[in-house]
């Protein structure tokens, strides 16, 4: 493993890259474990952020204000309204008489839903004409309406079971249909978008912060002088400080993915292995950025400030806060060079769309390039002397 000893005068052979790296990794792990505050933070940050972000953004609100425009007054209509109410998502506050009245309620924000039951509804159902029931949803906040809309899908059989007797009941699933109009946000992005994003945001914040302190802490404590006087190379110091945090990233990833699955019901449509592999790559890229900051900053405070300077555009311009497609060109250009942007596409792609690696080649390459560039810069910036 080590290079052959070409120096006759040297009684000791080069201990080799792997042994020195191992020494560094071990040391970092011990220090990490001993720094209880930081260690607690590593575990608490993902949990805390998930709960705060996840639930604050992701509440599944019930009893949403709803207006009903019933142009038919038969028992089937009453049964349908009762079924809507029974889902728990809809609080029917208004019975309106015209579409204009309903529109006004929706646009003013007094109701989030308008349900219009057409004239001759019951008769048309019995004739098997499959009339449409129109549901208008204020989807400007998709998380608020998403749960309610999905609950609507279950009301048709419920409305029909008791009220509809006769030959047409044979065909009850399609006795009538729902036509859902999402207003203001036709894509209807749901909370499923947010949890994969949180995976990226939490990793960005914690990974970067921990390595940002790595070099400056050694300088401030005076241990750097000793470390530099030993036969260890800058790349070994760098990797030795990054690798233990990759393991921390793994733990955080596991916490977030478990929560995504069991707390928020986010599916993982694609390959879990691929997701883990690419998330590790993303953690590596952020660790490299943090380490680079660490070689530039003069002290720990500066390193933390730099981290936050970098964190802010990551949150705002990556597509986590605001839809990427909706941002102006210059903001998109900045977003394209941020690792989180590419990771969001990867995470959402794998978790929600079931993408494979070929669907996201550009984003994977971007992350690799980003990580290598940051590491290269860190190695250039790292001072092997005290000059």
């Amino acid at each position, binding site marked *: 493993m*080590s290079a052959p000893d070409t*120096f006759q*005068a*040297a*009684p*000791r*052979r*080069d*201990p*080799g890259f792997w*042994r*020195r790296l*191992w*020494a*560094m990794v*071990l*040391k970092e792990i*011990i*220090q990490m474990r*001993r*720094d209880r505050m930081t260690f607690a933070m590593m575990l608490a940050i993902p949990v805390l952020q998930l709960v705060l972000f996840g639930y604050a953004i992701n509440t599944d609100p019930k009893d949403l204000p709803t207006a009903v425009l019933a142009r038919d007054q038969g028992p089937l209509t009453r049964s349908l309204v009762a079924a809507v109410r029974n889902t728990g998502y809809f609080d029917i506050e208004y019975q309106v008489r015209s579409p204009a009245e309903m529109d006004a309620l929706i646009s003013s924000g007094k109701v989030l839903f308008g349900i219009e039951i057409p004239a001759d509804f019951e008769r048309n159902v019995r004739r098997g004409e499959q009339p449409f029931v129109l549901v208008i949803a204020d989807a400007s906040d998709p998380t608020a309406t998403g749960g309610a809309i999905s609950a609507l899908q279950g009301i048709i059989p419920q409305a029909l079971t008791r009220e509809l007797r006769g030959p047409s009941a044979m065909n009850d699933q399609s006795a009538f249909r729902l036509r859902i109009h999402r207003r203001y946000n036709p894509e209807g992005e749901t909370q499923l978008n947010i949890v994969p994003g949180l995976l990226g945001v939490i990793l960005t914040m914690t990974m970067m912060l921990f390595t940002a302190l790595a070099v400056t802490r050694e300088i401030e*404590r*005076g*241990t*750097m*002088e*000793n470390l*530099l*006087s*030993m*036969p*260890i190379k800058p790349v070994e110091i760098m990797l030795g400080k990054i690798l233990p945090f990759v393991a921390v990233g793994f733990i955080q990833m596991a916490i977030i993915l478990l929560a995504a699955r069991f707390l928020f019901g986010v599916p993982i449509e694609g390959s879990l292995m691929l997701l883990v592999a690419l998330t590790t790559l993303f953690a590596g890229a952020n660790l490299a950025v943090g380490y680079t900051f660490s070689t530039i900053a003069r002290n720990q405070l500066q390193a933390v400030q730099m981290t936050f300077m970098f964190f802010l555009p990551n949150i705002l311009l990556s597509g986590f806060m605001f839809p990427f497609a909706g941002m102006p060109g210059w903001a998109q250009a900045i977003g394209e060079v941020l690792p989180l942007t590419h990771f969001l596409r990867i995470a959402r792609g794998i978790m929600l769309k079931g993408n494979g690696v070929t669907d996201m080649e550009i984003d994977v390459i971007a992350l690799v390039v980003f990580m290598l560039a940051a590491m290269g810069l860190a190695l250039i910036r790292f001072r092997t*002397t*005290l*000059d």
Partner: protein
Amino acid sequence: MTDIAIEVERLTKSFDQRVVVRDLTLKVPKGAIFGFLGPNGSGKTTTIRMLCGLLTPDSGTGTCLGYDILTESELIKRQVGYMTQRFSLYEDLSIRENLEFVSRIYGVPNPVQAARAAIERLGLEGRSEQLAGELSGGWKQRLALGACILPQPRLLLLDEPTAGVDPKARRDFWDEIHHLAAEGITVLVSTHYMDEAERCHEIGYIAYGRLLVHGTVEDVIKESGLSTWNVSGANLAALTEKLNTTAGVDMVAPFGTSLHVSGRNGKQLEKSIFALKRSDKSHHWTRSEPSLEDVFIHLMSEADDNFAVENRDERA
């Protein structure tokens, strides 16, 4: 290979245009204990850092263990143990963990075993799991030395290793240094203590970045050209006042119940003292050898003058 451990020529280093080490030329034979003396801020630490590759000299050349200090610091680092002035092992690592870390970095074959052996040698059995940061000053210093010698270096660079350490610990420390030198390790140690200087095989005195003298203790004393008299008797304070204005007297220093009176011009000093002896019979004068401290204090005041002249020249 030659039997020279350190050989540097005209090393110069400045920080922000302030020259910290100037034209330093030094030769240390293998297996020697070389004492590096000089006042605070005289460039001792800077010189040591240049020797082990932590600082790059602005100009000058040199070798350390036969390796070029400018281009082969990687190789130098592998065989040099450097003990920093300030404790620089990891305070949040235990004694054992620190020693194992050092063993691994230097590629010592069995790091766990090597650390355990070092702990025994240090007499720290039973405390190996204690955090380094919780140790007292003396123990920290011992641990730092233990970590330095663990990878069996051929050269030790010790920067004020005994600062703030009690006399017993200092004695033990120097016993260890001599023991190591006997095994063939070269030791360069900086210090402020005169008794420690006298324990060295060779000494060098540096002030304002210049190496002023260099040699064995006897050589340094002889080369100073200083003549010294010892005087005891009544009312030495008044005598000191008087001596300070006497021709031929360069330095008066109290030593217990007597004074050391020194001067560069032996003849002039002798003449003045004979005159004093005749006029005042209450003091007892004897010729004595200048101590190392006399020599150094003398060197320092001389260097002060030189430096003042130099500064004036540079400004002009």
